[in-house]
């Protein structure tokens, strides 16, 4: 019952695409994506609050869909596109969501923010101008203990508005 010895840890060679960068890794199979991102790739922007699927802090995107990195195994993610918060800003410019979060004070301690941003980005990719209740539902898997969510919802609405205006302006050109 009490594990007495360290078990031999099987390592696997894994090819991961993170923020559009390919990585070749040799890691123990039982390491979760969360651990590999933070400990092997140095991408500590992905945070964690429980490691059991109960808070949403560790959310990353896999092929554009929000998933929990604390319950995902890298061996199962070969060939998939993984996006972390570090991959959100483009070319040194803040993503419109990040911009709106900064302007409206939607991040207080900032610990839930990476997961919230990615979840919101997936929502806006699927739905240009989601109503507030839809944003609430989409973010229902991301706990925040600081903000009371109000400013977060405001910021997602603001970013959505700007993105859709930008898209329309772009289309008009």
């Amino acid at each position, binding site marked *: 019952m009490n*594990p007495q010895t*360290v078990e031999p840890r099987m390592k696997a060679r894994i090819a991961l695409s993170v923020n559009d960068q390919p990585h070749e890794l040799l890691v123990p199979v039982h390491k979760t994506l969360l651990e590999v991102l933070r400990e092997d790739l140095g991408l*500590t922007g992905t945070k964690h609050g429980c490691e059991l699927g109960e808070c949403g802090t560790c959310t990353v995107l896999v092929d554009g869909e929000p998933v929990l990195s604390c319950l995902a195994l890298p061996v199962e993610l070969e060939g998939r596109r993984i996006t972390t918060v570090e991959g959100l800003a483009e070319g040194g410019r803040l993503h419109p969501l990040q911009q709106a979060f900064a302007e409206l004070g939607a991040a207080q301690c*900032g*610990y839930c*923010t990476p997961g919230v941003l990615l979840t919101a980005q997936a929502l806006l990719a699927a739905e240009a101008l989601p109503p507030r209740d839809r944003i609430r539902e989409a973010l229902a898997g991301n706990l925040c203990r600081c903000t009371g969510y109000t400013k*977060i919802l405001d910021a997602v609405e603001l970013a959505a508005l700007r993105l859709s205006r930008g898209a329309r302006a772009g289309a008009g050109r």
Partner: protein
Amino acid sequence: MTGETRYADDLVLPRMAHAKLLRSSHAHARIRGIDTTRARALPGVLAVITGADLPRVRFGILPVSQDEEALCTEKVRMVGDAVAAVAAVDEETAEQACRLIDVAWEPLPALMSIEESLAHPEVRIHEYGDGPNVHKSVALQFGDVEAAFARADLVREDTFYYEGSTHLPLEQHAAVAHWGPDGKLTLWSSTQTPHYVHRLLAKILDVPAAHVRVVAAPVGGGFGGKLDPFAHEIAACHLSRLTGRPVKIALTREEVFYVHRGRHPVLMWLKTGFTRQGDITGCHIKTWLDGGAYGSYGVASTFYTGVINPVSYKMPVYKFEGARIFTNKPPCGPKRGHGTPQPRFALEVQLDRAAEQLGLDPAAMRRRIVTEPFTKTANHLTVTTTGLAECIDRVVEASGWRTKWRGWRAGEAPSEKKRGVGLACSAYMTGAGTAIYWNAMPHSGVVLRADRSGAVALLCGATDIGQGSDSILASFAAEVLGIALKDVHVHPADTTLTPVDLGSYSSRVTLMCGMATIQAAERLRGAIFEAVAKKLEVAPGALVARGGRVGVPEDWDTAVPFAQAVELGEAMHGVLAFPGSYAPPRRAGKYKGGGVGPSPCYSYTASVVDLSVDEETGEIELHDVWIAHDVGRALNPLLVEGQVEGSVYMGIGEALMEEQVFRKGLHKTPSMLDYKSPTTLETPDIHTILVETDDPEGPFGAKEAGQGPLLPIMPAIANAVYHAVGVRIDEVPITPDKILRALEARRRGKPARVGPEKLPLFAFKEPVVVESAFGQPADAVVVRPFQAERLA
């Protein structure tokens, strides 16, 4: 925001080892022996320590409660007490090694409630205190309450219970310790109080404080949960000393529940006399706090359950008796609102009941009895400005109270969902008036150094725990110096670099560091003005600093760019580095215990909650929360609103679902899933209204905003539930189960109430009797220590 902020657990140092603690699996037990042989033999283990390896000192955050050991040596007092620590090449190995440590326990009876602890004086959790298992007992009386009750038209006695809850910061505590080959120790930690950790580490590890450096990493949520020195910090330091490597330790969520220091469960009895018009003739409160296994901030917490209530409403005479009881549970401490939400809940629900009995509108009744500005309370606290009346008016207006609150109704025909509104108010401190250890030094210090580039470095011992204090302080400096916010660089909380700040607690940072920043900036500006005046051949008093330049307004073309002004200043004075200091006005009441409660100024809040109750399931749905907060002056309205909204959120959690409860000696729900914290779906729209009173005590008139707004939420919800379905839930959390039970009781002809039925048999000590200071005029601005030169 971009993932670049480096919290403690994000730090990686070369050769870093990883540590884990072995924690007690008994709620109360003597330690007969600890055998670490098997753990040491595990490959990859670098060091294993027990309490025997540490200097034999007991510590605690308050000088009067030195009752903790980093690693327990003789006995453990709760499940989760640390008894040994392991450093290993990785976290998994350290964890495995912990499971290989053999402890011989001699279990002792576990006391898991106030009642059990008082019923079993023969079992002692600690040897010290004000009686068997009584940590602290206090009794204060200001005027003759019995006479006040005799004068009253209505006297109410009610009992309430407030369940414990925890901070649940999203970031789990973590620390990295590095004891360098030069014999100096550096600790990076998610702490809200690097200064106290610094002082205590030196004592606990028996090293000169001069060789210890504590750096507060950005904190991923504090709320008062990262305000004590913790076993994991101490163990990491010692393990680093032994292994010669940096050592990281990161708590699991379950361990964070054991570290706790959260809201005290409090049982309360409240007796208040009212006149027919709704005036209070006098008030008497008794509180019993379930303190958990250690002292922590508990003495202060005990006082706070009694001393702040009189700040909001006129209470000519006042009596308070409180006792904190030890139990074999994680220690309670200073969660957001520290000790004040519990008695506030009792008072505001009782006011609601009194209003009904007197046939008064509960909003109008409160409006009538708010305290007068610049007067003293019965217990000698100084009310400076108060915007409570305006707060009430504003929420009444915004919420449509007059149409929604349709008067006091007796039961209506049953329908599935009933709507109701409730109102409550509160007052809170803007920074505690006294330090944890008595001294005459500043509570906050700041150093400003101007660079020839025109940049200004702001060195400040405070940590930004999410309240945005860094940017507020920078904005103060920028405002005084007339430069852009971006030109101010804040260097927070590093004990070798920054002046002392007592910590990010009791909403003191904006005020105290803010005042120190303003002082330093004014001094810096003075030196610069002197030099620029000489060059422009004008009087320094004719100069202004704005838009990045210094000059005479009438002759702005000759104004000097700030960078050049700094050069002129440096040429005249040498390096331009100026300190600012702040200590609160010395206003402590001149009686024993008078040091807890005074604050430079108080913030005020009023809130209206609109909700529905499902009469069949007891489920509550919140529709809207209106909250008006007297913040003195809203320097950065977005940040203030954020603090208010966050407080409301936490209040909703405490009101409806959060509870730290135990079963068979163990925490029942030590996880994010089972300890319920509201999601976006339970959090309604929060409508924040900021009220300004421009307090002479605050920086640019500002008061706190991060704690007070939590307080009215629980009673406002309780009052709204009553308004909706006519049942009184006299305890939090207000769960659907309790609502159904109260409705059933009513159906059976019993009182429609769920709440405590009995009170402990407990003899409080004789009260310290002091004359009531109620209504005495208080000075507008007193001369503050270190601020003599400042013009009001």
